[in-house]
């Protein structure tokens, strides 16, 4: 078995595990109960999804897909601080 098939098998085995994690996170998003709970669940989902995207780039053998995870991670952080600002401050601009 050469390296490339081995990598393919390994990643194919990993994918369902990732999806179990995603679905469990999603259950937490659905159950809430408060806004910060949802936000941190989205955080976890987003960061893990970013990793998953990087893993998939190897599975699909197209390295050109790789800028996507970085952008996703950045924006999840942005979402965090937006919501934090909303909860914390009197107005968004302050």
């Amino acid at each position, binding site marked *: 078995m050469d390296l490339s098939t081995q990598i393919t098998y390994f990643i194919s085995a990993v994918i369902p595990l990732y999806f179990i994690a995603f679905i469990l996170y999603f259950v937490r998003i659905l159950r809430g109960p408060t806004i910060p709970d949802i936000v941190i669940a989205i955080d976890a989902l987003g960061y893990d999804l970013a990793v998953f995207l990087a893993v998939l780039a190897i599975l699909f053998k197209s390295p*050109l897909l790789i800028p996507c995870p970085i952008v996703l991670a950045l924006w999840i952080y942005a979402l965090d601080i937006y919501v934090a600002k909303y909860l914390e401050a009197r107005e968004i601009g302050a």
Partner: protein
Amino acid sequence: MMPDMARFVYNSLIVILVFNTAISLYGILARPSLVKKLIALTIFSDSLNSFAILVGYRLCKGFEQPVPPIVTRIPPTQEHISKLIATAVDPLPQALVLTAIVISLAVLAFLAALTLRIYYVSGTTDARSLALMRARAAVEGE
């Protein structure tokens, strides 16, 4: 068996997108809050965009995943280009969706500003109260 499965998954995905479209259209038409209408509007246009991307998708020989339509060898040989044709997805829907996403963002930005202005003027973002206030203002004249 594999063609059937591909076809089933593809069509199920389309059905899901259509249902998303319908749910968000319900949100646009029936929910009273203007902000909720805007949220629904984004989902609506995104679902249609996803449909466009799905139209541009294809599978390669042996049901392999295609690659993005990018020439990776510079300068390419004829052989390289024909390999790309055999494995790349359709770039045109992607370009169309790019344009459509930006356009819907622009429209949403304007509508958000408008909602804000409506709140400053009237003190509400509820479509029903707005309709009432409007009717009252129209009766009272200028």
